[in-house]
């Protein structure tokens, strides 16, 4: 695919904003903590990572599906007085969208530095797979057209899009299983990942069926955790603790037509990235060929594949070949979700993929390589099990967030000043 984008004229706020701090809790099942305490833990880690004091942050954003704490509690706990906050409704695709909102409110003069968090007990409280209280909830009104058919969980609702891609393009379960294979390889080099065992294509396609075409190992993990990223002006970022990571472009919750019941508008094997890319690449001034690392959302293996395809990393219909070619693995031309992502590291509704790409661009992912005198890891670029997961010379990353086949968000980040 040609990179037919305008890289010469700065568009919108290209390069004017940065992610200056990232932090998370452990990824586990059974946090034994409130979402308030988890959020405080993640925000504290992100402040320390950035070299910021609580008084340096005056904005806060969070997102949840009625399963979390609120900005006012967390800000109060850590000693932040807010000039702006908002707790948004939503799950996947929120990360990049809220980063865009943070840029907007800072640009409007409403505050200067925004901490964005997502805190969830996705295994022990409100299970993101939808079992338990969510499955037992009464069904009213518009939900009668879906949940009354036993069509409720994310996997069940996305399955018609995934199946139709196989029908339209001949995509095979074995091709798509390579997404899990790649992400499990990456997670094996991530000491904080929940699942660190490498798996094979055979392991994926022989695991039990959940909802065709999804086997157990095509589905992400459910975990308890909180995550945080801190956004401020690039000018200000230069004085902070970490190497500069600039934001070139952001797209937030871009939809297909008929977001109310998106299958009305086909092709149903095409996802929101088909529309979002028309904003992402021109605003970034780069195209898919120039990206070194991707963070394509992996609630399911198929999600990763469909987005890489519709954002133009390969031709339409060739997503199965792309993800099974070795390109998306560490050591390949453009690794995806080098932390292990949602399939292996932990489920965060998109945050951990942004955190990972920030660390990649700093050249400082937290693998098992030895730490040098400067406090940074001395990366070996040996990707064998238990080894390195730093991508050599990572300059540009793309995050592709997903809520449903019909809603997506995205972001391009760059190492250093734009």
């Amino acid at each position, binding site marked *: 695919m040609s990179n037919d984008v305008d890289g010469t004229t700065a568009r919108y706020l290209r390069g004017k904003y940065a992610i200056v701090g990232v932090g998370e809790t452990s990824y586990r099942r059974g946090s034994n903590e409130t979402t308030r305490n988890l959020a405080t833990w993640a925000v504290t880690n992100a402040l320390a990572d950035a070299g910021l004091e609580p008084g340096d942050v005056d904005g806060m954003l969070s997102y949840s599906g009625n399963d979390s704490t609120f900005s006012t509690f967390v800000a109060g706990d850590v000693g932040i007085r807010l000039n702006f906050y908002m707790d948004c409704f939503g799950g996947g695709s929120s990360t990049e969208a809220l980063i865009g909102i943070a840029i907007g409110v800072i640009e409007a003069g409403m505050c200067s530095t925004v901490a964005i968090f997502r805190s969830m007990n996705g295994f022990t409280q409100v299970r993101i*797979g*939808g*079992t338990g209280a969510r*499955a*037992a909830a*009464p*069904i*009213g*009104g*518009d939900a*009668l*057209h*879906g*949940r*009354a*058919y*036993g*069509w*409720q*969980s994310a996997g*069940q*609702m996305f*399955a*018609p*899009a995934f*199946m*139709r891609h*196989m*029908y339209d393009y001949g995509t*095979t*379960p074995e091709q798509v299983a390579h997404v899990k294979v790649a992400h499990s390889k990456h997670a094996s080099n991530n000491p904080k990942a929940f699942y660190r065992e490498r798996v094979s294509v055979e392991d994926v*396609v022989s695991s*039990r*069926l*959940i*909802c*065709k*075409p999804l086997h157990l190992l095509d589905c992400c993990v459910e975990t308890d955790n909180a995550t945080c990223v801190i956004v401020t002006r690039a000018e200000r970022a230069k004085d902070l603790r970490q190497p500069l990571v600039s934001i070139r472009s952001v797209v937030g919750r871009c939809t297909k*037509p*008929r977001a*109310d*019941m998106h*299958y*009305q*508008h*086909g*092709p*149903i094997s095409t996802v929101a990235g088909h529309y979002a890319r028309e904003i992402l690449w021109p605003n970034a001034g780069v195209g898919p060929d120039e990206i070194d690392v991707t963070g394509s959302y992996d609630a399911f293996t198929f999600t990763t594949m469909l987005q890489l395809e519709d954002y133009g990393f390969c031709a339409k219909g060739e997503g199965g070949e792309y993800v099974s070619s070795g390109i998306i693995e560490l050591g390949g031309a453009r690794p995806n979700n080098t932390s292990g992502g949602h399939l292996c590291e932990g489920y965060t509704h998109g945050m951990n993929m942004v955190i990972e790409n920030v660390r990649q661009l700093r050249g400082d992912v937290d693998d098992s390589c030895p730490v040098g005198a400067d406090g940074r890891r001395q990366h070996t670029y040996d990707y064998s099990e238990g080894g390195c997961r730093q991508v050599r010379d990572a300059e540009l990353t793309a995050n592709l967030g997903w809520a449903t086949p019909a809603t997506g968000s995205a972001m391009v980040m760059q190492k250093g000043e734009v």
Partner: protein
Amino acid sequence: MPVTGEYLGMSLSIDDTDKENLAYFGYCAAGEFRLQRGRRTGLLRYPPTTACPWTGDRDYDWVPVEGRGEVHSYAEVHHAIQPAFRAFTPYLVLLVDLDTQKGEPTEHEALRVMGNLVDPDGRLAAPDVVRSVGIGSRVRMVFTPVADGLAIPNWTLDETATQPEQPWRYPQE
């Protein structure tokens, strides 16, 4: 008046302000499949909405529509998360292109109506029937009664139609 009922162990309800869904499911309870037709465009729409998705026109009429079509795609659920569905796994959730208005107003649009694959009497289909249905299968609508003013539209194999020799099925059974 609001409508409430129990279906497969689930508590279903339609609020008395929800005029669109009260009308839609009320017609289903009377054995009729009706959709809203926008007055400005003459286009039918699914599911019920408060205005025309193509023009925003809030005026419409409920018109009878033939409940026949072809499976466009499907989910085959092996791990049910709603307790009452566990007894019926694997079950099919079908996305059906109605014959009416298919390919309108643009090529890739259709009235794609959800429903479970059921027996002609409206009960979730047995595993051998599930294994015979895939993309391209011809189906007709049947109604599964729930309560006064509420029946759930579902799909059963159309005995009068010519079925594809081999509908497309996910390769692993």
